[in-house]
Protein backbone atom coordinates (compact mmCIF):
# COMPACT_ATOMS: atom_id res chain seq x y z
CA UNK A 1 0.00 0.00 0.00
CA UNK A 2 2.76 2.39 1.02
CA UNK A 3 6.40 1.62 0.41
CA UNK A 4 9.59 3.61 0.73
CA UNK A 5 13.10 2.63 -0.23
CA UNK A 6 16.26 4.35 0.94
CA UNK A 7 14.37 7.60 1.23
CA UNK A 8 16.54 10.62 2.04
CA UNK A 9 15.66 14.21 2.67
CA UNK A 10 17.68 17.15 3.91
CA UNK A 11 16.95 20.80 4.51
CA UNK A 12 19.94 22.91 3.55
CA UNK A 13 22.78 20.77 4.94
CA UNK A 14 20.69 19.28 7.74
CA UNK A 15 19.90 15.64 6.98
CA UNK A 16 16.41 14.96 8.34
CA UNK A 17 15.67 11.54 6.87
CA UNK A 18 18.53 9.21 6.01
CA UNK A 19 17.59 6.01 4.24
CA UNK A 20 14.05 5.22 5.32
CA UNK A 21 12.58 1.86 4.25
CA UNK A 22 8.90 1.21 4.75
CA UNK A 23 6.44 -1.44 3.71
CA UNK A 24 2.95 -0.84 4.98
CA UNK A 25 0.46 -3.50 4.06
CA UNK A 26 -3.22 -2.87 3.40
CA UNK A 27 -5.59 -2.89 6.34
CA UNK A 28 -3.19 -2.19 9.14
CA UNK A 29 -2.64 0.59 11.60
CA UNK A 30 0.95 1.66 11.32
CA UNK A 31 2.46 3.92 13.94
CA UNK A 32 5.53 6.06 13.40
CA UNK A 33 7.09 6.87 16.76
CA UNK A 34 9.81 9.27 17.54
CA UNK A 35 10.83 12.27 19.60
CA UNK A 36 10.09 15.80 18.52
CA UNK A 37 12.16 16.72 15.49
CA UNK A 38 12.78 13.11 14.46
CA UNK A 39 11.26 13.77 11.05
CA UNK A 40 7.79 12.22 11.43
CA UNK A 41 5.87 15.10 9.91
CA UNK A 42 8.47 15.44 7.18
CA UNK A 43 8.01 11.78 6.26
CA UNK A 44 4.22 12.13 6.07
CA UNK A 45 4.56 15.24 3.95
CA UNK A 46 6.81 13.41 1.53
CA UNK A 47 4.55 10.36 1.27
CA UNK A 48 1.51 12.56 0.69
CA UNK A 49 3.26 14.62 -1.95
CA UNK A 50 3.28 17.88 0.01
CA UNK A 51 7.04 17.96 -0.08
CA UNK A 52 9.75 16.68 -2.40
CA UNK A 53 12.67 14.47 -1.43
CA UNK A 54 16.32 14.11 -2.40
CA UNK A 55 16.78 10.45 -3.22
CA UNK A 56 15.14 7.07 -2.87
CA UNK A 57 11.68 5.92 -3.80
CA UNK A 58 8.19 6.36 -2.40
CA UNK A 59 5.16 4.51 -3.67
CA UNK A 60 1.52 4.80 -2.71
CA UNK A 61 -1.07 2.50 -4.31
CA UNK A 62 1.91 1.08 -6.18
CA UNK A 63 2.59 4.38 -7.95
CA UNK A 64 5.27 6.99 -7.48
CA UNK A 65 3.82 9.85 -5.45
CA UNK A 66 4.11 12.39 -8.22
CA UNK A 67 2.12 10.13 -10.56
CA UNK A 68 -0.92 9.99 -8.30
CA UNK A 69 -4.03 11.21 -10.10
CA UNK A 70 -6.86 13.32 -8.72
CA UNK A 71 -8.87 10.12 -8.31
CA UNK A 72 -6.08 8.54 -6.28
CA UNK A 73 -5.86 11.61 -4.08
CA UNK A 74 -9.55 11.34 -3.31
CA UNK A 75 -8.86 7.95 -1.77
CA UNK A 76 -6.23 9.38 0.55
CA UNK A 77 -7.32 11.20 3.70
CA UNK A 78 -4.83 13.45 5.45
CA UNK A 79 -4.97 15.14 8.83
CA UNK A 80 -1.88 17.19 9.66
CA UNK A 81 -1.58 18.77 13.08
CA UNK A 82 -1.28 22.27 11.62
CA UNK A 83 -4.09 22.04 9.08
CA UNK A 84 -6.83 24.43 10.10
CA UNK A 85 -10.56 24.77 9.65
CA UNK A 86 -12.69 27.77 8.69
CA UNK A 87 -13.23 29.37 12.08
CA UNK A 88 -16.23 31.49 11.27
CA UNK A 89 -18.12 28.80 9.38
CA UNK A 90 -20.25 26.24 11.17
CA UNK A 91 -19.18 22.64 11.50
CA UNK A 92 -21.64 21.69 8.78
CA UNK A 93 -20.55 24.44 6.40
CA UNK A 94 -16.92 23.46 6.89
CA UNK A 95 -17.74 19.98 5.72
CA UNK A 96 -20.05 21.07 2.91
CA UNK A 97 -17.13 22.78 1.19
CA UNK A 98 -15.43 19.42 0.94
CA UNK A 99 -18.63 17.72 -0.20
CA UNK A 100 -18.61 20.21 -3.07
CA UNK A 101 -14.95 19.63 -3.86
CA UNK A 102 -15.19 15.84 -3.74
CA UNK A 103 -18.59 15.66 -5.36
CA UNK A 104 -20.15 13.94 -2.36
CA UNK A 105 -23.84 14.61 -1.55
CA UNK A 106 -24.52 16.87 1.47
CA UNK A 107 -26.19 13.93 3.19
CA UNK A 108 -22.67 12.66 3.90
CA UNK A 109 -22.25 15.50 6.40
CA UNK A 110 -24.74 14.23 8.94
CA UNK A 111 -23.54 10.66 8.50
CA UNK A 112 -19.94 11.59 9.18
CA UNK A 113 -20.84 13.93 12.06
CA UNK A 114 -22.70 11.08 13.74
CA UNK A 115 -19.70 8.89 13.16
CA UNK A 116 -17.35 11.23 15.02
CA UNK A 117 -19.97 12.19 17.59
CA UNK A 118 -20.30 15.83 16.62
CA UNK A 119 -23.92 15.80 15.47
CA UNK A 120 -24.97 17.96 18.42
CA UNK A 121 -22.56 20.69 17.39
CA UNK A 122 -23.40 20.75 13.69
CA UNK A 123 -24.54 24.38 13.79
CA UNK A 124 -21.73 25.70 15.96
CA UNK A 125 -19.09 27.94 14.39
CA UNK A 126 -15.79 26.07 14.33
CA UNK A 127 -14.10 28.67 16.54
CA UNK A 128 -16.45 27.80 19.40
CA UNK A 129 -15.38 24.15 19.45
CA UNK A 130 -13.23 22.67 22.19
CA UNK A 131 -9.90 21.16 21.29
CA UNK A 132 -11.28 17.64 21.29
CA UNK A 133 -14.26 18.64 19.16
CA UNK A 134 -11.97 20.39 16.72
CA UNK A 135 -9.88 17.25 16.38
CA UNK A 136 -13.05 15.33 15.62
CA UNK A 137 -14.12 17.90 13.03
CA UNK A 138 -10.77 17.48 11.30
CA UNK A 139 -11.26 13.72 11.38
CA UNK A 140 -14.75 14.13 9.96
CA UNK A 141 -13.24 16.05 7.07
CA UNK A 142 -10.87 13.16 6.43
CA UNK A 143 -13.57 10.50 6.70
CA UNK A 144 -15.97 12.22 4.38
CA UNK A 145 -14.68 10.60 1.22
CA UNK A 146 -14.24 7.18 2.74
CA UNK A 147 -10.49 7.08 2.13
CA UNK A 148 -8.54 3.88 1.53
CA UNK A 149 -5.43 5.28 3.15
CA UNK A 150 -5.58 7.63 6.11
CA UNK A 151 -2.61 9.71 7.31
CA UNK A 152 -2.93 11.14 10.80
CA UNK A 153 -0.16 13.35 12.13
CA UNK A 154 -0.44 13.27 15.92
CA UNK A 155 -4.20 12.79 15.93
CA UNK A 156 -4.50 12.74 19.71
CA UNK A 157 -1.75 15.03 20.94
CA UNK A 158 -2.96 17.29 23.70
CA UNK A 159 -6.36 15.64 24.00
CA UNK A 160 -8.06 14.36 27.15
CA UNK A 161 -8.10 10.59 27.73
CA UNK A 162 -11.81 10.30 26.91
CA UNK A 163 -11.50 11.93 23.52
CA UNK A 164 -8.32 9.99 22.92
CA UNK A 165 -10.11 6.69 23.52
CA UNK A 166 -12.94 7.80 21.29
CA UNK A 167 -10.55 8.64 18.48
CA UNK A 168 -8.81 5.31 18.91
CA UNK A 169 -12.15 3.61 18.46
CA UNK A 170 -12.78 5.61 15.29
CA UNK A 171 -9.40 4.61 13.92
CA UNK A 172 -10.05 0.94 14.68
CA UNK A 173 -13.45 1.20 13.00
CA UNK A 174 -11.72 2.50 9.91
CA UNK A 175 -9.36 -0.43 9.91
CA UNK A 176 -12.31 -2.76 10.30
CA UNK A 177 -13.88 -1.26 7.20
CA UNK A 178 -10.71 -1.92 5.25
CA UNK A 179 -8.72 1.31 5.46
CA UNK A 180 -4.99 1.48 6.01
CA UNK A 181 -3.95 3.95 8.68
CA UNK A 182 -0.58 5.67 9.01
CA UNK A 183 -0.26 7.70 12.18
CA UNK A 184 2.47 9.42 14.13
CA UNK A 185 2.62 9.86 17.86
CA UNK A 186 4.97 10.34 20.75
CA UNK A 187 2.61 8.51 23.02
CA UNK A 188 4.02 5.03 23.64
CA UNK A 189 0.88 3.70 25.26
CA UNK A 190 -1.18 4.82 22.34
CA UNK A 191 1.17 3.09 19.94
CA UNK A 192 1.23 -0.10 21.96
CA UNK A 193 -2.54 -0.45 22.22
CA UNK A 194 -3.58 0.89 18.85
CA UNK A 195 -0.98 -0.06 16.26
CA UNK A 196 -0.50 -3.37 14.50
CA UNK A 197 3.00 -2.36 13.66
CA UNK A 198 5.27 0.47 14.70
CA UNK A 199 8.56 1.92 13.60
CA UNK A 200 10.79 3.87 15.96
CA UNK A 201 12.30 6.85 14.21
CA UNK A 202 15.28 8.56 15.71
CA UNK A 203 17.46 11.20 14.08
CA UNK A 204 16.23 10.33 10.63
CA UNK A 205 16.68 6.57 10.86
CA UNK A 206 14.29 3.77 11.74
CA UNK A 207 15.98 2.12 14.68
CA UNK A 208 13.44 -0.63 15.34
CA UNK A 209 10.22 -1.92 13.84
CA UNK A 210 7.60 -4.61 14.27
CA UNK A 211 4.49 -5.39 16.28
CA UNK A 212 4.63 -3.54 19.64
CA UNK A 213 4.49 -6.65 21.86
CA UNK A 214 6.96 -8.47 19.68
CA UNK A 215 9.44 -5.59 19.99
CA UNK A 216 9.00 -5.59 23.73
CA UNK A 217 9.58 -9.32 23.98
CA UNK A 218 12.67 -9.03 21.86
CA UNK A 219 14.16 -6.62 24.36
CA UNK A 220 13.14 -8.61 27.38
CA UNK A 221 16.69 -9.70 28.19
CA UNK A 222 17.00 -8.67 31.79
CA UNK A 223 13.85 -10.35 33.10
CA UNK A 224 13.32 -9.00 36.60
CA UNK A 225 10.53 -9.17 39.12
CA UNK A 226 9.74 -5.99 41.02
CA UNK A 227 8.23 -6.25 44.47
CA UNK A 228 6.93 -3.50 46.71
CA UNK A 229 6.72 -4.40 50.38
CA UNK A 230 4.18 -3.22 52.92
CA UNK A 231 7.09 -1.68 54.76
CA UNK A 232 7.57 0.63 51.78
CA UNK A 233 10.73 -1.09 50.63
CA UNK A 234 11.30 -2.05 46.97
CA UNK A 235 13.17 -5.19 46.00
CA UNK A 236 14.09 -6.62 42.62
CA UNK A 237 14.35 -10.41 42.07
CA UNK A 238 15.78 -12.35 39.19
CA UNK A 239 13.48 -14.33 36.94
CA UNK A 240 14.71 -17.63 38.45
CA UNK A 241 13.32 -20.62 40.34
CA UNK A 242 15.03 -19.46 43.51
CA UNK A 243 12.98 -16.33 43.59
CA UNK A 244 9.77 -18.33 44.02
CA UNK A 245 10.72 -19.30 47.58
CA UNK A 246 11.34 -15.74 48.53
CA UNK A 247 8.01 -14.68 47.06
CA UNK A 248 6.17 -17.44 48.90
CA UNK A 249 7.77 -16.36 52.17
CA UNK A 250 6.83 -12.74 51.64
CA UNK A 251 3.28 -13.78 50.87
CA UNK A 252 3.05 -15.90 53.99
CA UNK A 253 4.32 -13.07 56.14
CA UNK A 254 1.81 -10.70 54.54
CA UNK A 255 4.59 -8.33 53.61
CA UNK A 256 3.92 -8.25 49.91
CA UNK A 257 2.08 -5.16 48.67
CA UNK A 258 2.51 -5.37 44.87
CA UNK A 259 4.40 -7.64 42.50
CA UNK A 260 5.01 -7.50 38.78
CA UNK A 261 7.52 -8.70 36.25
CA UNK A 262 9.22 -5.82 34.51
CA UNK A 263 8.81 -6.40 30.80
CA UNK A 264 10.19 -3.62 28.70
CA UNK A 265 7.72 -1.13 27.28
CA UNK A 266 8.16 0.60 23.94
CA UNK A 267 9.34 3.50 26.02
CA UNK A 268 12.16 1.56 27.67
CA UNK A 269 13.13 -0.08 24.37
CA UNK A 270 13.41 3.31 22.86
CA UNK A 271 15.49 4.51 25.76
CA UNK A 272 17.77 1.52 25.42
CA UNK A 273 18.18 2.02 21.68
CA UNK A 274 18.82 5.72 21.68
CA UNK A 275 19.72 6.69 25.18
CA UNK A 276 17.03 9.26 24.78
CA UNK A 277 13.57 9.53 26.22
CA UNK A 278 10.77 9.77 23.72
CA UNK A 279 9.24 12.93 24.96
CA UNK A 280 12.32 14.36 26.55
CA UNK A 281 12.03 17.51 24.50
CA UNK A 282 8.53 18.16 25.68
CA UNK A 283 9.47 17.55 29.27
CA UNK A 284 12.31 19.98 28.91
CA UNK A 285 9.99 22.43 27.24
CA UNK A 286 7.53 22.40 30.11
CA UNK A 287 10.19 22.22 32.82
Amino acid at each position, binding site marked *: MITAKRLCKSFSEKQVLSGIDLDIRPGMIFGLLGPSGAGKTTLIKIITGQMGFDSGEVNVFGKAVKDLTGEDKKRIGIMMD*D*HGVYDRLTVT*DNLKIFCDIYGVPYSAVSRVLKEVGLDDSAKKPAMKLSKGMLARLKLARVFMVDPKIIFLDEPTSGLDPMTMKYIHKLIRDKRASGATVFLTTHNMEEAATLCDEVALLNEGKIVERGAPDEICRRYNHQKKIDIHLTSGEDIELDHKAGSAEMITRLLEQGMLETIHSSEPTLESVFLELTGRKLDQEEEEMYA
Partner: protein
Amino acid sequence: MRNIGIIIKKQLRDTLKNKTVLIQFIMFPVMTLIMEHAVSIPDMPEFFFTKLFSVMYIGMAPLTSVASIIAEEKEKNTLRVLTMANVKSWEYLAGVGIYVWTLCMAGAGVMATGLPSSDIPFYLCIMATGFIISIAMGAAVGIFAPNQMVATSLFMPVMMVFSFAPMLAMFNDKIEKAARVFYTQQLRVLLGQMTFDGIKTETVLVIVLNALIALSIFFAAFKRKGLE
Protein backbone atom coordinates in the same frame (compact mmCIF):
# COMPACT_ATOMS: atom_id res chain seq x y z
CA MET B 1 -13.34 25.11 -13.23
CA ARG B 2 -15.96 23.71 -10.86
CA ASN B 3 -13.61 24.46 -8.00
CA ILE B 4 -13.71 28.19 -8.77
CA GLY B 5 -17.45 28.14 -8.12
CA ILE B 6 -16.88 26.23 -4.89
CA ILE B 7 -14.39 28.82 -3.66
CA ILE B 8 -16.83 31.61 -4.51
CA LYS B 9 -19.57 29.84 -2.59
CA LYS B 10 -17.28 29.35 0.38
CA GLN B 11 -16.30 33.05 0.38
CA LEU B 12 -19.91 34.07 0.20
CA ARG B 13 -20.76 32.00 3.28
CA ASP B 14 -17.73 33.35 5.07
CA THR B 15 -18.16 37.04 4.26
CA LEU B 16 -21.61 37.10 5.79
CA LYS B 17 -19.94 36.14 9.06
CA ASN B 18 -16.78 38.19 8.68
CA LYS B 19 -17.68 41.69 9.81
CA THR B 20 -14.31 43.27 9.16
CA VAL B 21 -14.37 42.26 5.51
CA LEU B 22 -18.08 42.89 5.13
CA ILE B 23 -17.73 46.46 6.35
CA GLN B 24 -15.10 47.11 3.70
CA PHE B 25 -17.62 46.35 1.00
CA ILE B 26 -20.53 48.22 2.50
CA MET B 27 -18.99 51.32 4.04
CA PHE B 28 -18.36 53.45 0.95
CA PRO B 29 -21.60 52.63 -0.88
CA VAL B 30 -23.60 53.48 2.23
CA MET B 31 -21.60 56.64 2.92
CA THR B 32 -22.13 57.73 -0.67
CA LEU B 33 -25.88 57.32 -0.46
CA ILE B 34 -26.00 59.23 2.81
CA MET B 35 -23.72 62.08 1.80
CA GLU B 36 -25.30 62.61 -1.60
CA HIS B 37 -28.72 62.91 0.01
CA ALA B 38 -27.83 64.74 3.17
CA VAL B 39 -25.16 67.22 2.23
CA SER B 40 -25.44 69.93 -0.35
CA ILE B 41 -22.97 72.77 -0.38
CA PRO B 42 -23.40 75.62 -2.89
CA ASP B 43 -20.90 75.47 -5.77
CA MET B 44 -20.13 71.86 -5.03
CA PRO B 45 -19.35 69.91 -8.21
CA GLU B 46 -22.03 67.49 -9.35
CA PHE B 47 -21.93 64.08 -7.65
CA PHE B 48 -18.91 65.17 -5.70
CA PHE B 49 -19.20 62.45 -3.06
CA THR B 50 -20.06 59.68 -5.48
CA LYS B 51 -16.96 60.37 -7.52
CA LEU B 52 -14.62 60.86 -4.59
CA PHE B 53 -15.82 57.86 -2.61
CA SER B 54 -15.79 55.69 -5.71
CA VAL B 55 -12.04 56.02 -6.18
CA MET B 56 -11.44 55.59 -2.47
CA TYR B 57 -13.52 52.43 -2.67
CA ILE B 58 -11.33 51.21 -5.53
CA GLY B 59 -8.16 51.87 -3.56
CA MET B 60 -9.40 50.25 -0.38
CA ALA B 61 -11.96 47.45 -0.47
CA PRO B 62 -10.60 45.05 -3.12
CA LEU B 63 -7.00 45.45 -2.06
CA THR B 64 -7.48 44.91 1.65
CA SER B 65 -10.07 42.16 1.36
CA VAL B 66 -8.18 40.05 -1.18
CA ALA B 67 -4.94 40.41 0.76
CA SER B 68 -6.50 39.48 4.07
CA ILE B 69 -8.53 36.59 2.68
CA ILE B 70 -5.43 34.97 1.16
CA ALA B 71 -3.19 35.73 4.13
CA GLU B 72 -5.69 34.35 6.62
CA GLU B 73 -6.08 31.19 4.64
CA LYS B 74 -2.31 30.74 4.56
CA GLU B 75 -1.91 31.54 8.24
CA LYS B 76 -4.50 28.96 9.31
CA ASN B 77 -3.30 26.42 6.77
CA THR B 78 -6.77 25.95 5.33
CA LEU B 79 -5.34 26.68 1.90
CA ARG B 80 -3.15 23.62 2.33
CA VAL B 81 -6.23 21.52 2.93
CA LEU B 82 -7.78 22.85 -0.26
CA THR B 83 -4.71 22.12 -2.36
CA MET B 84 -4.47 18.65 -0.85
CA ALA B 85 -8.05 18.15 -2.00
CA ASN B 86 -6.81 18.91 -5.50
CA VAL B 87 -7.95 22.54 -5.75
CA LYS B 88 -5.36 24.24 -7.95
CA SER B 89 -3.73 27.47 -6.84
CA TRP B 90 -5.00 29.35 -9.86
CA GLU B 91 -8.52 28.08 -9.24
CA TYR B 92 -8.35 29.38 -5.70
CA LEU B 93 -7.01 32.78 -6.74
CA ALA B 94 -9.53 33.06 -9.55
CA GLY B 95 -12.33 32.18 -7.13
CA VAL B 96 -11.30 34.81 -4.62
CA GLY B 97 -10.64 37.40 -7.35
CA ILE B 98 -13.95 36.90 -9.12
CA TYR B 99 -15.81 36.88 -5.84
CA VAL B 100 -14.32 40.15 -4.59
CA TRP B 101 -14.70 41.79 -7.99
CA THR B 102 -18.38 40.84 -8.15
CA LEU B 103 -19.05 42.08 -4.65
CA CYS B 104 -17.28 45.37 -5.40
CA MET B 105 -19.27 45.76 -8.61
CA ALA B 106 -22.45 45.30 -6.60
CA GLY B 107 -21.19 48.08 -4.30
CA ALA B 108 -20.45 50.23 -7.34
CA GLY B 109 -23.97 49.51 -8.58
CA VAL B 110 -25.34 50.95 -5.36
CA MET B 111 -23.13 54.01 -5.64
CA ALA B 112 -24.27 54.55 -9.22
CA THR B 113 -27.93 54.85 -8.28
CA GLY B 114 -27.72 58.63 -8.05
CA LEU B 115 -26.06 59.11 -11.43
CA PRO B 116 -27.98 59.87 -14.62
CA SER B 117 -28.62 56.54 -16.35
CA SER B 118 -26.63 57.60 -19.43
CA ASP B 119 -23.49 57.90 -17.28
CA ILE B 120 -23.85 54.53 -15.59
CA PRO B 121 -22.17 52.30 -18.24
CA PHE B 122 -19.13 54.56 -18.35
CA TYR B 123 -19.01 54.73 -14.57
CA LEU B 124 -19.17 50.96 -14.19
CA CYS B 125 -16.41 50.46 -16.78
CA ILE B 126 -14.12 52.73 -14.81
CA MET B 127 -14.96 50.97 -11.57
CA ALA B 128 -14.47 47.53 -13.10
CA THR B 129 -11.00 48.48 -14.33
CA GLY B 130 -9.99 49.96 -11.01
CA PHE B 131 -11.16 46.91 -9.08
CA ILE B 132 -9.11 44.59 -11.27
CA ILE B 133 -5.91 46.53 -10.67
CA SER B 134 -6.53 46.65 -6.92
CA ILE B 135 -7.37 42.96 -6.77
CA ALA B 136 -4.10 42.09 -8.51
CA MET B 137 -2.25 44.20 -5.96
CA GLY B 138 -4.12 42.68 -3.04
CA ALA B 139 -3.36 39.19 -4.32
CA ALA B 140 0.33 40.05 -4.62
CA VAL B 141 0.35 41.24 -1.00
CA GLY B 142 -1.54 38.13 0.11
CA ILE B 143 0.97 35.88 -1.64
CA PHE B 144 3.98 37.71 -0.21
CA ALA B 145 2.72 37.87 3.36
CA PRO B 146 3.04 34.71 5.45
CA ASN B 147 0.24 35.80 7.79
CA GLN B 148 -2.42 38.42 8.37
CA MET B 149 -0.25 40.68 10.49
CA VAL B 150 2.35 41.06 7.80
CA ALA B 151 -0.37 41.44 5.17
CA THR B 152 -1.93 44.33 7.09
CA SER B 153 1.36 46.12 7.52
CA LEU B 154 2.03 45.74 3.80
CA PHE B 155 -1.32 46.81 2.44
CA MET B 156 -1.93 49.68 4.87
CA PRO B 157 0.56 52.13 3.33
CA VAL B 158 -0.31 51.04 -0.22
CA MET B 159 -4.00 51.45 0.42
CA MET B 160 -3.52 54.85 2.09
CA VAL B 161 -1.57 56.19 -0.85
CA PHE B 162 -3.97 54.95 -3.51
CA SER B 163 -7.20 55.85 -1.78
CA PHE B 164 -6.28 59.16 -0.16
CA ALA B 165 -4.11 60.65 -2.90
CA PRO B 166 -7.12 61.64 -5.03
CA MET B 167 -8.72 63.41 -2.08
CA LEU B 168 -5.59 65.25 -0.99
CA ALA B 169 -4.93 66.20 -4.60
CA MET B 170 -7.97 68.44 -4.48
CA PHE B 171 -6.41 70.63 -1.83
CA ASN B 172 -2.83 70.88 -2.94
CA ASP B 173 -1.28 71.34 -6.37
CA LYS B 174 1.96 69.62 -5.51
CA ILE B 175 0.15 66.54 -4.29
CA GLU B 176 -2.03 66.66 -7.39
CA LYS B 177 1.07 66.52 -9.61
CA ALA B 178 2.51 63.62 -7.68
CA ALA B 179 -0.79 61.79 -7.47
CA ARG B 180 -1.06 61.72 -11.27
CA VAL B 181 1.18 58.67 -11.36
CA PHE B 182 -1.44 56.64 -9.50
CA TYR B 183 -4.29 54.90 -11.26
CA THR B 184 -6.78 56.02 -8.63
CA GLN B 185 -6.09 59.70 -9.37
CA GLN B 186 -6.42 59.10 -13.13
CA LEU B 187 -9.67 57.22 -12.59
CA ARG B 188 -10.83 60.19 -10.53
CA VAL B 189 -10.06 62.44 -13.53
CA LEU B 190 -12.02 60.12 -15.79
CA LEU B 191 -14.99 60.15 -13.44
CA GLY B 192 -14.82 63.94 -13.61
CA GLN B 193 -15.22 63.81 -17.38
CA MET B 194 -17.78 60.98 -17.36
CA THR B 195 -17.26 60.25 -21.05
CA PHE B 196 -15.06 58.19 -23.32
CA ASP B 197 -14.51 61.23 -25.56
CA GLY B 198 -11.32 63.21 -25.19
CA ILE B 199 -9.54 60.86 -22.84
CA LYS B 200 -5.93 61.97 -22.56
CA THR B 201 -3.10 59.63 -23.51
CA GLU B 202 -1.47 60.39 -20.19
CA THR B 203 -4.49 58.99 -18.39
CA VAL B 204 -4.60 55.78 -20.38
CA LEU B 205 -0.85 55.37 -20.11
CA VAL B 206 -0.80 55.73 -16.33
CA ILE B 207 -3.67 53.30 -15.85
CA VAL B 208 -2.17 50.71 -18.19
CA LEU B 209 1.22 51.13 -16.56
CA ASN B 210 -0.27 50.73 -13.07
CA ALA B 211 -2.13 47.64 -14.22
CA LEU B 212 1.01 46.17 -15.74
CA ILE B 213 3.02 46.82 -12.61
CA ALA B 214 0.33 45.31 -10.39
CA LEU B 215 0.02 42.24 -12.58
CA SER B 216 3.75 41.70 -12.86
CA ILE B 217 4.21 41.99 -9.10
CA PHE B 218 1.40 39.49 -8.74
CA PHE B 219 2.89 37.01 -11.21
CA ALA B 220 6.39 37.47 -9.84
CA ALA B 221 5.12 36.80 -6.31
CA PHE B 222 3.15 33.80 -7.47
CA LYS B 223 6.05 32.36 -9.40
CA ARG B 224 8.46 32.80 -6.56
CA LYS B 225 6.35 31.77 -3.62
CA GLY B 226 3.31 29.99 -5.03
CA LEU B 227 0.67 29.73 -2.37
CA GLU B 228 2.89 28.23 0.31
